[in-house]
């Protein structure tokens, strides 16, 4: 009878379902990075002067910085001069209605299962479609507009709502925050912008779907979400990329701002191309995500299901400034084959009675490595702060690694922090029990893994939970069993 491990091996070598390339003529900037390239991007985007200045300042800053090395991942040095920082499908003009979208692009998204339509399947979800460096469509704009909600590409927001963008852009993740954030600030091309006005509860999920298509490019999107007083929004991000032998860089920045009594729920189902079973190709996902709970009683909740990318480096964080504000981080990270994930969160408690909750589930299979890295910091001002952290790792096979690196720093005696972590594997007893009840080994592994992750999956918006569950099963089935 096969053991769990054998099943893992048996199923190793599964295929990435989103690895196709769309044949579309693109407008690509010459490779490499210089002031000229940044001015070119800035001109293409018709940036206002302040933004061009911001980009150039970030670029100067970036040149003085070095790539971080503390994370537990290994990769060949990235040649930043070999990347093209701008690639956009050649369209004369942004289509005025969804019907005018290039059929090739339309077909691409159909193939990915998220057709550009305000149609039934996605009736409850407004989607911003980002193709390489630009946003190609956003659905349900009119309906949202009626409520005063702004949901558009950040390029449009820069043109149409400069005061909002200028006020908040870089206010949570300043350009000098880290190497990749500086790079993003210099070259970002598009991304999504959301503004929820005071007291409005956004009636549908907002979503951005990122697709890298061109080779030799990177994707450097920037997302800015502002929830004004008393508002609520749930936002979801999805992503895929073609299967290529080269590694492609994705260095995004996401900034969330929640004012008094506002709540932002940000969910990610990350499925960038992970590279092949030998570790060739795949996306380098070096992303800075941070939310500021600026107002009292505000709440920011991050949920992520990370199954893709060759390397993941991301720490969606919460700065809990407002009194009684709440930060949450729910994460499932699955690594297989040669994937490496170093992910976690930072919860910075500043305001009084701030609370945070961290639930991180790591699953490692094949020869992959998965690391949870997190910081819980309670400042002196954070009277009555509470944190609860639970990190669980599951190893499938004896060639992978699972690591937990939490930092806990407490400077207020009324604070209470609890941290727990465990490491385990799928037990032979559990497998046998399922199989005795007639469930096949493969299904049993999926069942047990899903159970292991349930606390996190339950946090996903209903529309995507099913999808994420499937994704989880696929990532493991083809590598783990």
């Amino acid at each position: 009878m096969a053991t769990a491990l054998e099943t893992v091996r048996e199923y190793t070598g599964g295929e990435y379902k989103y690895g196709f390339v769309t044949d579309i003529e693109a407008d690509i900037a010459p490779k490499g990075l210089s002031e000229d390239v940044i001015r070119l991007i800035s001109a293409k985007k018709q940036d206002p002067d302040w933004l061009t200045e911001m980009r150039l300042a970030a670029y100067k800053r970036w040149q003085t910085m070095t790539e971080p090395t503390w994370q537990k991942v290994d990769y060949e040095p990235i040649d930043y001069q070999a990347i093209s920082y701008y690639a956009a499908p050649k369209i004369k003009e942004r289509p005025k209605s969804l019907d005018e979208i290039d059929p090739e692009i339309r077909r691409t998204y159909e193939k990915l299962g998220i057709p550009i339509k305000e149609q039934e399947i996605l009736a409850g979800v407004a989607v911003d479609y980002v193709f390489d460096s630009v946003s190609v469509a956003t659905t349900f704009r009119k309906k949202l507009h009626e409520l005063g909600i702004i949901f558009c590409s950040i390029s449009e927001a820069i043109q149409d709502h400069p005061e909002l963008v200028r006020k908040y852009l870089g206010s949570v993740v300043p350009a000098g925050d880290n190497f990749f954030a500086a790079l993003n600030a210099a070259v970002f091309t598009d991304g999504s912008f959301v503004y929820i006005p005071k007291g409005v509860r956004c009636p549908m999920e907002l979503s951005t779907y990122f697709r890298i298509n061109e080779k030799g490019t990177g994707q450097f999107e920037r997302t800015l979400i502002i929830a004004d007083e008393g508002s609520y929004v749930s936002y979801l991000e999805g992503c895929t990329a073609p299967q290529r032998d080269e590694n492609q860089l994705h260095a995004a920045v996401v900034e969330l701002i929640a004012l008094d009594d506002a709540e932002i729920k940000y969910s990610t189902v990350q499925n960038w191309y992970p590279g092949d079973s030998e570790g060739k190709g795949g996306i380098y996902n070096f992303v800075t995500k941070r939310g500021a709970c600026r107002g009292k009683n505000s709440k920011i909740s991050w949920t992520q299901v990370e199954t893709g990318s060759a390397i993941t480096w991301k720490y969606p964080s919460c700065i809990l400034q407002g009194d009684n504000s709440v930060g949450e981080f729910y994460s499932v990270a699955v690594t297989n084959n040669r994937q490496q994930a170093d992910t976690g969160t930072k919860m910075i408690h500043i305001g009084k009675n701030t609370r945070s909750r961290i639930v991180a589930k790591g699953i490692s299979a094949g020869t992959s490595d998965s690391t949870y890295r997190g910081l819980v910091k309670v400042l002196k001002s954070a009277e009555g702060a509470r944190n609860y952290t639970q990190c669980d790792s599951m190893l499938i096979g004896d060639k992978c690694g699972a690591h937990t690196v939490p930092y806990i720093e407490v400077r207020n005696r009324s604070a209470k922090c609890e941290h727990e972590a465990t490491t385990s594997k799928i037990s032979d007893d559990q497998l046998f029990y399922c199989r005795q009840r007639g469930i096949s080994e493969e299904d049993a592994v999926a069942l047990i893994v899903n159970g292991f992750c349930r606390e996190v999956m339950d946090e996903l918006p209903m529309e995507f939970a099913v999808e994420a569950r499937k994704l989880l099963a696929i990532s493991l089935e083809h590598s783990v069993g």
Partner: protein
Amino acid sequence: MSALRNRTAEPVPGFAEALERLRGEAAGSSGRALEQRNAAFERFQALGVPTPRVENWKYTNAASFANRPFALAPRGTVDPDLVIPHFAGGHKARRLILVNGRTVPQFSHLGGLPAGMTVRPLAQVLAETPELVDRTSVNDEPEHSFEALNRALVEDGAWISLEDGVALDEPLQVISILTEAESAFMAHPRHVIRLGRNAKLRLILTTVALGQAESLLNQVETVEIADGADLTIDRTLEQGQGRSAITRSRFVLGSRSRLQQTTASIGGSLIRHEMEARLRGTHSEAILNGLMMPQGTEHVDTLIRMHHEMPDCQSDQFYKTVADDRGRAVFAGKIFVHKDAQRTNSYQKNDSLLLSDDAEIDAKPELEIYADDVKCSHGATCGDLDPASLFYLRSRGMDEALARSMLTFAFTGEVLERIADESVDHIVRRMILSRLPGGERLAELG
């Protein structure tokens, strides 16, 4: 090394001057032994003194407390009456006494050791057979600033060796005294402890500072525990203002061997205790317990690296922390399960009490795991005393200060009960009570 360079500080000239003074004078400071000292010193200079930019020193700024002009320790002696209160292990215990890092044979009592057991001043071994001191099995991680410095400047220490099957029934206590002094001084003792197969030893390691002085104790211990051997250590570190201590203990365990250590780090401007345990045989067990209790402006830092290198071993780290006033406590414990170390059971727990708003607790409980059939877990908690318990005691008539002290004392209890030697247990209880407000009223608990 260039990556390290901007994270470490250039050593002050005092260290080089100390090396110069030792040359030809200290044991093992000529010929090949001198070459080794010089090589170690070069390594120290190249590595530099770590700043908080070095990950393992993130919460403790070695450059600020250690990189100062310390002179070699004065050849002092002490009034025996001051040492006697620190005797532990009962009247049959053997004792080796060091003053400022140098053994003092006339204070020591080492009579009647069983055949096959040797306790000698390390200086003798360094003078006669320096090649015996270093053995590759515990010598594979020299990239450590303070260990390199110790190797360069070591003068003496304890040499404890038990041949196969030898057991000492009574405890052996090593008391390390730091004297008062006019000017800042440093000592770099080294203990070499070797237990042969199935050997057994109970060791009490006591470090005490007497009177006022500014001092730096930089101690290295290499401990080999062969197959089937059993070592128990009760360790206390009690120092005063201006005293800094860096202790680096490296343990290597063979098959079916056992190590149990309980440490009480009670005072001192700075206490840093680094432990590295390598489980190199199957079915061995390592238990590291500890209590850290900084108050005033004290800073206590514990760093543990638990390496499971072979299958079927167990380990447990259990540390409690109480930080008061402006004290700061750091716990960085890591469980490292190497590939193939299947069926490892490894646990780690760090519970902290933060008694003041000016105190700080930093914890970094890490797991690094490369084998799948393992059970590993860690837990860390941090908070103030439980208000419900506090209320309960107060409702029974105790004033708040006393209630707090009693609960704090109770919090430390779980560590105290793991101390193997009863007399050490009493000493530690007294040390804790003397630091608690109203502790004298709780004397019965001691």
